[in-house]
């Protein structure tokens, strides 16, 4: 197998294995379907482009988080400059649940949709932190993605958690 074919096969495997990360980041940073599709394409392109720079000493997931989050934030800034709006003010209490797959129960789909709506209402870096937190990354891994120290990650996460809890307060009561 040629080097190019090997690289392509490896990339395809990673996309299959870690596609969920990209999907969640895409949905967290773009609201409309058309924007999500555009962002998804851009993230995949940036991953492909930065593949030669990937060093084996870093975890694949860390590399994917870094590229995807950097791309998503740059995409949002560029999109904001192109158009005056990217997304309306997020309304955490009234969100469509259409993005859910049939396998999700209606309740679960609604909670997930409201989580995304809450994430949309947060600042760009808090979004990233909350995504990493909800995905269950350790402080050390979050530090590797963000470039913050572990201590700083702790402080930043406390703030992000507080903000998320505030945004989800209504739904917590409803679903308690």
């Amino acid at each position, binding site marked *: 197998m040629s080097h190019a074919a090997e690289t*392509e096969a490896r*990339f*395809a495997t*990673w*996309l*299959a294995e*870690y*596609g*969920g990360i*990209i*999907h*969640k980041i895409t949905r967290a940073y773009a609201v409309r379907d058309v924007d999500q599709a555009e962002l998804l*394409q851009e993230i*995949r*392109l940036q991953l*492909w482009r*930065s593949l030669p720079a*990937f060093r084996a000493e870093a975890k694949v997931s860390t*590399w994917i988080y*870094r*590229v995807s*989050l*950097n*791309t998503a*934030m*740059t995409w949002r*800034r560029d999109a904001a*400059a192109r158009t005056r709006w990217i997304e309306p003010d997020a309304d955490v209490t009234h969100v469509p649940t259409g993005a*859910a*797959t049939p*396998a*999700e129960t209606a309740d*679960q789909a609604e*909670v*997930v949709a409201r*989580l995304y709506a809450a994430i949309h209402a947060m*600042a*760009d*870096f*808090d979004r*990233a932190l909350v995504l990493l*937190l*909800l*995905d*269950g990354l350790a402080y050390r891994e979050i530090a590797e*993605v*963000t*470039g*913050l120290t572990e201590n*700083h990650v702790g402080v*930043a996460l406390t*703030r992000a*958690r507080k903000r*998320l*809890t505030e945004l*989800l307060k209504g*739904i*917590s009561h409803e*679903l*308690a």
Partner: protein
Amino acid sequence: MNLHDFEAVWKRQELPRGAEADLAALHATFATKNRKLAATLLVRDLAEASAGIFVAAVMGFVGWKLGPTAWPVAVAVALVLGVTGVFLAERVRAHRHKLGVEATMLAKLDADIAELGHQRRLLLSLWKWYLAPLAAAIVILCLTIRAHLPAWSPGRDPWFIGGYFLLMAALMVVVGWMNRQAVRRRIEPRLVELEKLRSDLLSS
């Protein structure tokens, strides 16, 4: 529900499989985008470099036609080539220092802020490295040509040459103003936005 419950629901969410990505289409899009970007950059760099080289060549030709007493034209040529050199050096520097998207978020943000800050400084100091050398080159060229004109030529009229310099000065003021506007409208808001992001990330 508490945050742990939300985390559990989050992790259970159904996600589309990444394998759906059409690698052939991705490859084609990547190649097309890369080709377009490379062509755009090549055209821009060639246009900037060749414009400077063309002006320097015309000046050199004029100096050569005027003879050895027109040696100050060589200084004007050097100034124009110097400005072209700065342009090209800037392109190379920007290309070399660009941090990839695989960097940490903080490092990428710092690099973007540094690059925007550099562009801002370059545009605000346009007078020093672009307009002043070009103005000096124009003055040297015009005065050298004037010294070689016959006494009856209208080009020796102080009003004519004064008017020409005034026109050039006005043009340069407009160029300087347009660049300041670009800094104010495009670069500074973006810089403020990035610095706010950075302070959000680092604020406790």
